[in-house]
């Protein structure tokens, strides 16, 4: 054990922590994006609200989510430690601004990352905290996140009705109404919060800019983490680079940015 802590305190060891935490966050983005694509279903939010309940209540996923929060904190703290060390390594700056060629995103990971951290805090406050606060603080005086009741026809599988329930105490439930041959789902309406948030143009703009930063952060970050881990194969490194560009710097940020934009223009 002492051997591995020594390893992680070396310069290259700290970089390994940056790359492993970073890649774990990349993996999370894939899951987060594919799950949230359910926002685009035309079902009054049934699938999305169902999914939100599952993601916040299924124990193994809860464990992973706490690991994820730790990872975000670890990635930020190590970035800070490394940045401070790097500043110290050049106490006197050049009089002439350095002109050595390098890619812009690679030089601005700290700024991009800080902005993303701010985004994560606001994003989690708005959705994650709003979703949980009614359970954590049972007696808070503010408005509670509403529940919705969905009725689905058992034979056709089609949504028959979706109605917001009046303010009150509810729990997530899924049962079958045998007489009506309908499946009834009662779920917390997180989608309502999504619609509300993305009706503000400022908020939409903030999200789009944040996804732009994400794109540049990952443009450098994904391939850089493989380089740090020692991946230099002539055949496979170019594949890693292409995944970094197309999946992480293009598809994923565009996918996320599409949510506020589509909601702003269609659901407002």
């Amino acid at each position, binding site marked *: 054990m002492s*051997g591995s802590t020594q390893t992680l305190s070396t310069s290259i060891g700290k970089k390994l922590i940056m790359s492993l935490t970073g890649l774990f966050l990349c993996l999370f983005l894939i899951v987060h994006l594919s799950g949230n694509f359910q926002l685009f279903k035309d079902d009054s939010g049934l699938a999305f609200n169902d999914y939100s309940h599952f993601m916040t209540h299924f124990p193994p996923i809860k464990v992973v989510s706490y690991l994820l929060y730790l990872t975000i904190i670890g990635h930020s703290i190590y970035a800070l430690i490394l940045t401070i060390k790097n500043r110290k390594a050049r106490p006197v700056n050049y009089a002439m601004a350095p002109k050595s060629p390098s890619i812009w995103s690679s030089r601005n990971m700290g700024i991009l990352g800080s902005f993303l951290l701010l985004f994560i805090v606001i994003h989690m406050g708005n959705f994650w905290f709003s979703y949980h606060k009614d359970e954590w603080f049972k007696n808070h005086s503010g408005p509670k996140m509403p529940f919705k009741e969905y009725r689905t026809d058992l034979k056709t599988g089609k949504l028959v009705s979706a109605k917001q329930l009046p303010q009150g105490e509810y729990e997530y439930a899924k049962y079958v109404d045998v007489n009506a041959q309908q499946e009834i789902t009662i779920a917390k309406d997180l989608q309502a919060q999504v619609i509300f948030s993305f009706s503000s143009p400022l908020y939409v703009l903030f999200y789009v800019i944040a996804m732009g930063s994400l794109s540049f952060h990952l443009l450098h970050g994904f391939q850089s983490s493989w380089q740090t881990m020692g*991946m230099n194969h002539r055949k496979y490194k170019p594949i890693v680079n292409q995944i970094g560009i197309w999946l992480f710097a293009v598809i994923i940020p565009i996918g996320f940015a599409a949510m506020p934009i589509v909601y702003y223009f269609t659901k407002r």
Partner: protein
Amino acid sequence: MSGNMNLTLKVWRQKDVKTPGKMVTYPAKDISPDMSFLEMLDVVNEGLIHKGEDPIYFDHDCREGICGSCSLYINGRPHGPKQGITSCQLHMRSFYDGQTIIIEPWRAAAFPVVKDLATDRSAFDRIQHAGGFVSINTGGVPDANEIPIPKPIADEAFNSATCIQCGACVAACKNASAMLFVSAKVSQLALLPQGQPERYQRVQSMVAQMDEEGFGNCTNTAACEAECPKEIKLTNIARMNGDFFTAKFFKSDEVHA
């Protein structure tokens, strides 16, 4: 003489390690475009000496791009505006008449300024002493090609071995990281059969010494690769990291009890 240039130099002057330095402006008159950058500095220094002033101090030795002494940060780039050459290989035809040229020393905590443009780069020597060697027994002269080495491996090792220890990689890096240099030195030996016995010990010792010297941490910006006069590749860094993690996580230093 027609075709000669008049330039303005802004040069970092610093008396010694302890005294803070400053930029001082000098005219460089009647400079031939065929001069090397160091010859231009010689001309300016001659003028300073005639005036009884302290000449600009800068490191140089071979003046043909093989020793790595000439460490000049010219107009925001180590070894000046051209790629793949050292400051001594830079010609004045790379500049234009009337241009202002800013000349600074390498800037890194691990490379303290000794005087003017010269820095103390013995940190690199100490990293080399920590492991940049192979231990072999002398004896009879071995046959050439006694140990077969595949051509691509030999070429790769040779490319890594062309590093002249100039420190431009550190100077160019926004983090003042020495990873390109150290990885070149680790690689040239790690690739060859003669380097195998000490391979995993070497990478650990050299990285430990690198950290000790106070260089920054690599963020893979690749500014070093762009500025290296010997065009040492970033793949060396990946190779070194791979060896480092192998050494730390998969090799035991001691016999199993």
